[in-house]
């Protein structure tokens, strides 16, 4: 779902950058106050793991493939803001080192794959009772991919309409194609994310406590910072 250069109308591209930069500034401010040094290796390890996981496409039928996005996993494990920074790092390096996703479209890619996914990954499981947490994680992961793809289809449609067909893709093609394929990719995302979290709960339960650390202000001299 990495948008390349030249696909979207410049107005849509600028809107994507504005949203991504706003999220980046908020994330840096929040994480700067709350991150602890002991959380750093886990965040870096998660970013690196998501990088290689995104290289492993799996077939979903009809000559199409999908891969783990990892934003719901990052949002669930680290909280939405630290999760976004992890995803921004992955997307930035994919773009600058390997040309995966366009440089001009990086803002849109950050919005579609990092911001939406991390927010859903954190808040959807929280809305459900503790005993339904696994279902919540699966639902969050599926929604992260499906809503991200639907937003991407909306950007394609908007670009097409704004530019009179010079950019983007007609809504009659973009919406059904993106939504159908990503409804299937989302199932893979849900299974991989839920499986990873269940595995971590057994072999490294401490990792599941990092979220609490990155979402709680650090106290200095008994005062919340």
């Amino acid at each position: 779902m990495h948008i390349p250069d030249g696909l979207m109308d410049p107005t849509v591209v600028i809107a994507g950058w504005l949203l991504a930069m706003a999220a980046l500034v908020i994330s840096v401010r929040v994480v700067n106050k709350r991150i602890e040094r002991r959380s750093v290796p886990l965040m870096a390890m998660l970013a690196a793991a998501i990088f290689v996981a995104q290289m492993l496409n799996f077939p979903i039928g009809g000559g199409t493939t999908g891969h783990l996005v990892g934003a719901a996993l990052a949002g669930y494990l680290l909280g939405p803001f630290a999760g976004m920074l992890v995803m921004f790092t992955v997307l930035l390096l994919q773009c600058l080192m390997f040309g995966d996703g366009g440089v001009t479209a990086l803002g849109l890619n950050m919005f579609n794959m990092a911001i939406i996914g991390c927010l859903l990954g954190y808040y959807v499981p929280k809305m459900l009772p503790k005993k339904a947490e696994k279902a919540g994680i699966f639902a969050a992961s599926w929604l992260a991919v499906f809503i991200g793809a639907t937003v991407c289809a909306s950007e394609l449609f908007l670009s097409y309409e704004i530019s009179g067909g010079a950019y983007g893709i007609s809504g009659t093609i973009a919406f059904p194609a993106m939504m159908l394929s990503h409804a299937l990719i989302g199932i893979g995302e849900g299974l991989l994310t839920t499986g990873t979290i269940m595995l971590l709960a057994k072999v490294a339960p401490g990792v599941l406590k990092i979220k609490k650390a990155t979402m709680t202000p650090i106290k200095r001299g008994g005062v919340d910072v």
Partner: protein
Amino acid sequence: MYKKGYLIALLVILGLFTFGLVGFYIFSAGLGDGLEKTMEDAGVEEGESAYKAPFDYGNNYTSTWIMGFLGFAATLVVGGLMFFGLGKKNGPGKR
């Protein structure tokens, strides 16, 4: 997580990538993802990139594995330095 735990996690991730890449080359290599298929259906071709990246993901198992390892290491280092920079003033943490 203690230092040995990080080393084990690193080896597990690279091991899974090594095996997963076999499956990728058997089942998925050469097939487009959801957006690429949508662009293909609409007859839209990928335009000229605004930036020339120094690497690509490779076109065989070995080159893709090397590029994956390179990306993994770069993300680990860049992410680590960036997150460490953010957390530096907070120290180990007191809550």
